[in-house]
């Protein structure tokens, strides 16, 4: 139930005095309360939990993280393929 998923705002509207949005979660569309992120705009992404947008997803941070990961990705040439190696080792040990 702690699951919080990223979604994209497709529509913003007020309902019953509450700021609401329609958000798209990879094809699934849901109503989401924007009271905690009132300046979230159409086209932006946010983390949504039980029908509430709780934090804007920061594209710049996402890119930086990926750049860093990509840099680390170069290491694999040096260390072979730990993913498969680890699996094989654990399997053999069992």
């Amino acid at each position, binding site marked *: *139930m*702690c*699951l*919080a998923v*990223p979604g*994209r705002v497709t529509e913003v509207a007020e309902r*019953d*005095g*509450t700021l609401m949005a329609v958000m798209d979660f990879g094809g699934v569309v*849901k109503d989401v*309360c924007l*009271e*905690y*992120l*009132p300046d979230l705009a159409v086209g932006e*992404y946010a*983390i949504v*939990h*039980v*029908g*509430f947008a*709780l*934090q804007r*997803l*920061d*594209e710049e*941070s*996402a*890119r*930086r*993280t*990926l750049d860093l*990961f*990509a*840099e*680390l*990705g*170069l*290491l*694999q040439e*040096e*260390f072979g*393929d*730990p*993913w498969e190696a*680890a*699996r094989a080792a*654990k399997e053999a040990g*069992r």
Partner: protein
Amino acid sequence: MKYLEEFQNPELARGLLADIRATVTRPWALMEVCGGQTHTIIRHGIDQLLPDEVELIHGPGCPVCVTPLEVIDKALEIAARPGVIFCSFGDMLRVPGTDRDLFRVRGEGGDVRVVYSPLDALRIAEQNPQREVVFFGIGFETTAPPNAMAVHQARKRGIRNFSMLVSHVRVPPAIDAIMNSPDCRVQGFLAAGHVCSVMGTGEYPELAERHRVPIVVTGFEPLDILEGIRLTVRQLERGEHTVENAYARAVRPEGNPAARDMLEDVFEVADRAWRGIGVIPASGWRLSERYRDHDAEYRFDVHSIATCEPARCRSGEVLQGLIKPHQCEAFGADCTPRTPLGATMVSSEGACAAYYLYRRLGTPAAPREASPVG
């Protein structure tokens, strides 16, 4: 956002694993706090891909699992009353109380409804003014702001037939309690990313300093988890103990100020019992005085509840990271997600259920359960 898809990238995962392998020189025990992270770790076999030196201990971060039996029994009693519509998140339905669960109460005629959001429960209250609508308000700091908003709106809009049975829990006091336990083996924490999306990171430096333990705010994708592990191991190897944020795309240092203000308005910090663990001081929230009219504990005088846990269930030890689920004798035999003895087998975020769902091999009872019997 075009970058989101890339967080599943196996190439990047290999890189992160290579870096962890290159860094680690001796054994370390890390705890992932959140049940959502446990789920990802077991589902993707991350614990098996890590070098042997890095052990992951599964933390108590599943709100469904730690909701105390007494509160579950109260919920069951309220839900069974005529005139009540009892609304809950779906994963509470099968959580065993002393002698039944919400699912059973519904089967026996109780009006138990599953909602996606607490605002759905509020709407049900508006549409049924002659009925008492009770929402089961559980969860960590991530779920507390949505629940707080529902109560706040009920008060503001005069929806008097709406009340909440509150059993909210807070992560930092739990980390403190885990570190204070004499059996504690944890040397570093992957803190729960979405909790920090709301609360920010301000509560952690003091804990990291006092317990001399690295705390790395970590997300939920496999790559996020590997990155959290990488940063924690790097700190441990260097003898550091600071707070780092490995989930910056969704966590700002200040969290979500509007949500935190609402939490302060609607809730007050209280001691809270955690199922299987016991009372942890200041580890929960209850409705503050001002919202007492919407507090189901006051509205429904629920007393003389005698609770009784099945003696064989070792979920307390599982929740504290003292044993792994398959070390419990009942695991996979008498205790399965369909017939759970403890709450950790109910929620998909519970460690017992995660092991059962994704780790069939290597556990004695698995082949029997895997065969198409029923």
